[in-house]
């Protein structure tokens, strides 16, 4: 039930953001009067946001009503908590990797990312995951930077590569 509540509140929050921006735009646009564009950039956004608000509230009410069945589901979900931890770790690593690309550059960040992600996914022992990770990094760099000529961020290696 708790998570169902969070979902509904997130949708409601998003819809309120949309309504606020549509309100702001309505003051800007109507002052100018754009031909026969009766909808403008505001009303469509406002309509979508209002729809989301209604659906979010509906979901909230429906979630509160089905409290009992949600509690039953929570017991089932607890079984796979170990796997969920793995997913959280991978997701966290992806976020760190995204920022590492920006700071360190693609090549150094990827050289660290692949060995760790292989290890997390279960490639054992550690030296094997390091070797496989570095080989994968080299292949990726060769394919994307050399063959596909993508301007990947160089970061720390700006003056070397």
């Amino acid at each position: 039930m708790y998570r169902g509540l969070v979902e509904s509140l997130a949708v409601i929050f998003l819809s309120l953001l949309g309504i606020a921006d549509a309100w702001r735009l309505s003051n800007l646009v109507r002052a100018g009067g754009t031909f026969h564009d009766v909808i403008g950039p505001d009303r469509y956004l406002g309509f979508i946001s209002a729809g989301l608000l209604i659906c979010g509230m509906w979901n909230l009410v429906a979630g509160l009503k089905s409290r009992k069945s949600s509690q039953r589901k929570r017991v089932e979900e607890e079984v796979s908590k170990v796997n969920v931890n793995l997913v959280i770790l991978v997701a966290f690593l992806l976020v760190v990797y995204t920022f590492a690309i920006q700071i360190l550059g693609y090549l150094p960040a990827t050289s660290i990312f692949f060995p760790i992600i292989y290890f997390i996914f279960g490639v054992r022992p550690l030296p094997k995951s390091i070797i496989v990770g570095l080989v994968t990094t080299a292949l990726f760099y060769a394919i994307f930077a050399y063959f596909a000529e993508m301007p990947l961020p160089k970061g720390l290696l700006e003056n070397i590569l």
Partner: protein
Amino acid sequence: MDSGLLGGFLGALNFTNLMYCFVGCVLGTFVGVLPGLGPAATSAILLPLTSYMPPSGAIIMLAGIYYGAMYGGSTTSILVNVPGEASSVPTCLDGFQMTKQGRAGEALAIAAIGSFIAGTFGTIVLSFMAPALARVALKFGPPEYFALVLFSLTALVGFSEGSLLKGLIAGGIGMFLACVGIDPLSGKQRLTFGSVTFTGGMDVIPVLMGLFGVAEVLTSAEEGILHLYEGALGHLIPRGRELVKGLYASVRGTISGFVLGLLPGMIPAVTSFLAYDIEKRLSKYPEKFGTGCIEGVAAPEAANNATSQAGFIPLMALGIPTSPTLAIILAALMMYGLQPGPFLFLHHSDFAWAVIASMYIGNVILLILNLPLVGLWARLCLVPYRYIGPIVLGVCMVGAFSVRNSLFDVITCVGFGILGYLMKKRHWPSTPLILGVILGPMLEQSLRQSLELSGGSPAILLTRPISVTLIILTAVLLVFIRKVLYKPQLDG
């Protein structure tokens, strides 16, 4: 000038396009065989990389992945009782029973033959119907396009996976996110909140890669390693009455899969269940279904292929995607500046016909790949996910970056990957979100243009015959999909 199907064959048979077709078919069969990696995820992952290919080669390859996955999905369903694709779930019911009876070869063969019949039939109808429909669509103005997009949005109901409310919310969020950036008609900034980063809007490709690629890996990270079937395949071609029964079931599956596949939201995963259900209802011995009936393998396999092929008709003739993978192919076409719809056959007929011709060739390639080489594909089950998952993640990261050389897109991809995973875990459908992102701007633009044409009167939408017909059809289809077509699947 219209080059026609013959010209299309000349284009498709050049070495480069032939190679892309082969690669697409191989990749399609590969992802079809591998549980946890679907055609939508693969197409999304490869989409940014296709920008380095010629347009015809890229679309030929992506199409090959889509229909190739339908062929490959049956292999693991039959041999190890694990569907490679959602559309192959009904194939498990009788296919695995046939394997246990030592008739795996027959099941694999009828699945491949049924897929070939359906794929080829679908391509033949596509060759005739798509250009004809495109000619009709030349008469479309903004009101007709608005009604058509509205009609396509009925797919939200089909993609809602049991909860219409959640489907509507996901679709609404997709349309909401599509508003981020600069409004093309007024030039005003929407939902940017003063941030320069947001003015470029949300590119659909990182969203797709996140929702289908990253989310798929995060979900699959929880799955274990599969065991390969090590028993005998038996003889490969069904004999006598079994062959006849399988062929008839393939034809019935082809027809039902194709007709339903023309409707928005009717993805192969739905039509294969319906074909199985129809076959069971028509059978003289319905009680034997689930114990190794050849019809139970042939019909759903033919149906999922027919549906995947049928989806190319509304895509190419009207620019309307009926499934997630087709939405990705639509994004690829738009990336190349090729607007699918009537003008595709008018201004880029060489391209359109080359893609259609490649489907004839692709079906032959797939028949070869899936009959004599079936043992090879079965061994793919041995590739542990611990090696595939990280590579997919790496490709997603680079792919998202390559769209606009922007780290914002990489962050978007990761963010939507986490969102997609959470949606899966919490039983929220992610496809309506993509549909909203793609169709939202089309809906808004056509509506605003329609109202500009009419001087602000919404009556224009209800006074033009095509648009009013489509609006009525939308209402009818909404009821039809929800009440009638989904019943057998939900029961199953």
